[in-house]
């Protein structure tokens, strides 16, 4: 009997689930990309282990916490590098990116109100500008091609997610001197499975 498809449940948008979607797209995994609205979420919430999304369901088990889900999938589909140190280097970059992503979410949520968004962006850039500068240096120090283990890992995919968010929020200025990051992003975007996913995924209206 073939194993059932995994189901990733989240809202309709990139947010905290896109990294997991990208990992599975890259690995060519056929998964259920379940997107629910707020009304459905309110109904579901009491039954969720931490009252939050995303969740990953597989073989009757439910796993929560966005970064945990992504790391589990990255391990499953060989995107954590070749050894414990590479895996740790990937984790490290993901943690740093999560710090920045956390500061950008309030901007994303305020985009309908340009004045509020501008103010929140200024706050977010206080973290993101040095943040991306540090990652540029980290990338250079690790050979300039990939963020961890000198091979493609989920950290490089997460970079792609967070820089997209940065640009959506109007924060391109933070990438000004980050030539190697921009180069890595182009290479990730050009990977056939990533390109296909980006072209075919549901478009979210902000």
């Amino acid at each position, binding site marked *: 009997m073939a194993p059932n498809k995994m189901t990733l449940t989240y809202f309709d948008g990139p947010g905290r689930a896109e990294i997991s979607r990208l990992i599975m797209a890259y690995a060519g995994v056929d998964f259920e990309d379940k997107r629910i609205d707020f009304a459905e979420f309110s109904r579901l919430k009491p039954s969720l282990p931490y009252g939050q999304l995303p969740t990953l369901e597989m073989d009757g088990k439910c796993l929560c*916490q966005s970064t945990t889900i992504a790391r589990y999938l990255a391990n499953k589909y060989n995107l954590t590098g070749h050894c414990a140190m590479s895996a740790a280097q990937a984790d490290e970059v993901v943690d740093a990116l999560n710090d920045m992503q956390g500061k950008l979410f309030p901007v994303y949520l305020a985009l309908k109100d340009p004045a509020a968004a501008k103010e929140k962006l200024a706050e977010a850039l206080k973290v993101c500008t040095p943040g991306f500068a540090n990652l540029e240096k980290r990338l250079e120090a690790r050979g300039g091609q990939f963020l961890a283990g000198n091979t493609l890992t989920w950290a490089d995919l997460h970079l792609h997610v967070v820089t997209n968010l940065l640009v959506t929020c109007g924060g391109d200025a933070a990438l000004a001197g980050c030539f190697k990051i921009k180069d890595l992003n182009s290479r990730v975007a050009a990977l056939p499975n990533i390109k296909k996913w980006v072209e075919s995924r549901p478009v979210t209206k902000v």
Partner: protein
Amino acid sequence: YEDHRLESPFINAEPWVAYKPSTPYGQLPVLKDGDVEIAQSMTIARYVANKFGLGGNNPLESAQMDEVVDALSDATEKQYNAFLFEKDETKKAALQKAFNEEVLPNTFKNLEKRIEGRGGEYMAAGRLSWADIMFYHFAAELPDKEVIKGYAKLNALFNKVANLPKIKSWVERRPDSAV
């Protein structure tokens, strides 16, 4: 291992200001293992846990540990914001109230259910892991020591970890600090 401590920047900014540019992300902690250096607190903890047998033996076990740690990190961040980072007294009081009345009870309620669903004794994989130690640390740092007693399985786990000989001896001999 070498437990290198810098004076808290809340007390004296100089040592940290001097050290900061040499850190990968302008933050602490940082771990050096031979020639290699890694940053990010949870990454360091996970790396050390895996190295010394307190991590998962397969991806699912590791994920179950990560999940609990992530949930505790969310709550820790909110506590840090209230206790440490927020300077405005009114906002600070509001954040602390929200933490005490919503964040903490929800976190403990969810974890009590989670631990019950996983055998009732440990947070993950049916044995002691870094998730249990992280939980112990989180609960031990809470200003109100009574809250945990309202959650039977969590309280039992807390006491179990607290009484592990090596944990107990570390807690007794470690340097005191405000942070």
